[in-house]
């Protein structure tokens, strides 16, 4: 850990700084990705997106088609904690979901 230069008249104030190999950027959002698989039905995936995220059917269908044709789609952008909730719920419905920092 590095410390700030000590001023003569006050107690030293130590400040934690990034060490360079651990970069912490708390403001970067997290994303939830749903991946294509050969089992989940298109209508079911659309329904789950509507149910879990409250998306209108058109948006849910577009995301489903992105998953189907492009192999994956970002279905939510949120804090890490909330993304973990999204991923757990998607897993509960049997969808293949992962998360990563954007």
């Amino acid at each position, binding site marked *: 850990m590095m410390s700030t230069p000590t001023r003569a008249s006050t107690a030293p104030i130590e400040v934690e700084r990034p060490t360079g190999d651990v970069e912490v950027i708390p403001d970067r959002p997290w994303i939830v990705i749903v991946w294509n698989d050969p089992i989940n039905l*298109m209508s079911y995936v659309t329904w789950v997106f509507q149910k879990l995220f409250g998306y209108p059917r058109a948006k849910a269908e577009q995301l489903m088609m992105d998953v189907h044709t492009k192999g994956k789609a970002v279905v939510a952008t949120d804090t890490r904690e909330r993304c*973990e909730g999204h991923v757990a719920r998607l897993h509960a419905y049997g969808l293949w979901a992962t998360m990563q920092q954007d």
Partner: protein
Amino acid sequence: MGHDAAGLMREDNPFRRDGDGFAVDLQPQVRTLLASIATQMREVLTGTAAADDPAVARLYPTAYPDDPMRNLEFEQAAGDGLQRDRLAALDVLAATTDARRLAEEQLLAWMRAINDARLVLGVRLDVTEDMRFEDLEDETARTSFSTYALLSTLLEAIVEALGDPGPVARVTDAD
């Protein structure tokens, strides 16, 4: 993604919204099959081989593929709850396979239990989006694929019967 299932059942949707629940009009042999699947799925999920079973692993995907430590934390936090939910859905299915009427919550449990069974069967069969019955030569695989196709038809019908989910508040982290 799987395409919409071919119609192996009668053409009418066996699930029909009826007041605040759903009328269920299924043939006895389909109900018997569902009861058998509920029993088998419980064994698959709770059996001693579950930890090494790729079909079971499919039900619990890796949340953080690039971060094993965080993924371990995620699994420890979410895994038991997911397992409980799955077994609870199976319990509902097992207890209501003969029901002529289901509450919406019960039909939602059917939906999840049926899709879990499809995932397990699908992994075991190594299904592809375009797999057809005729492509399979092995009798056991053919039987499994017939079951898989029937479950697909049932799931399709349930989704159609449920219709668009109502507007929901943004989900929270509360579980």
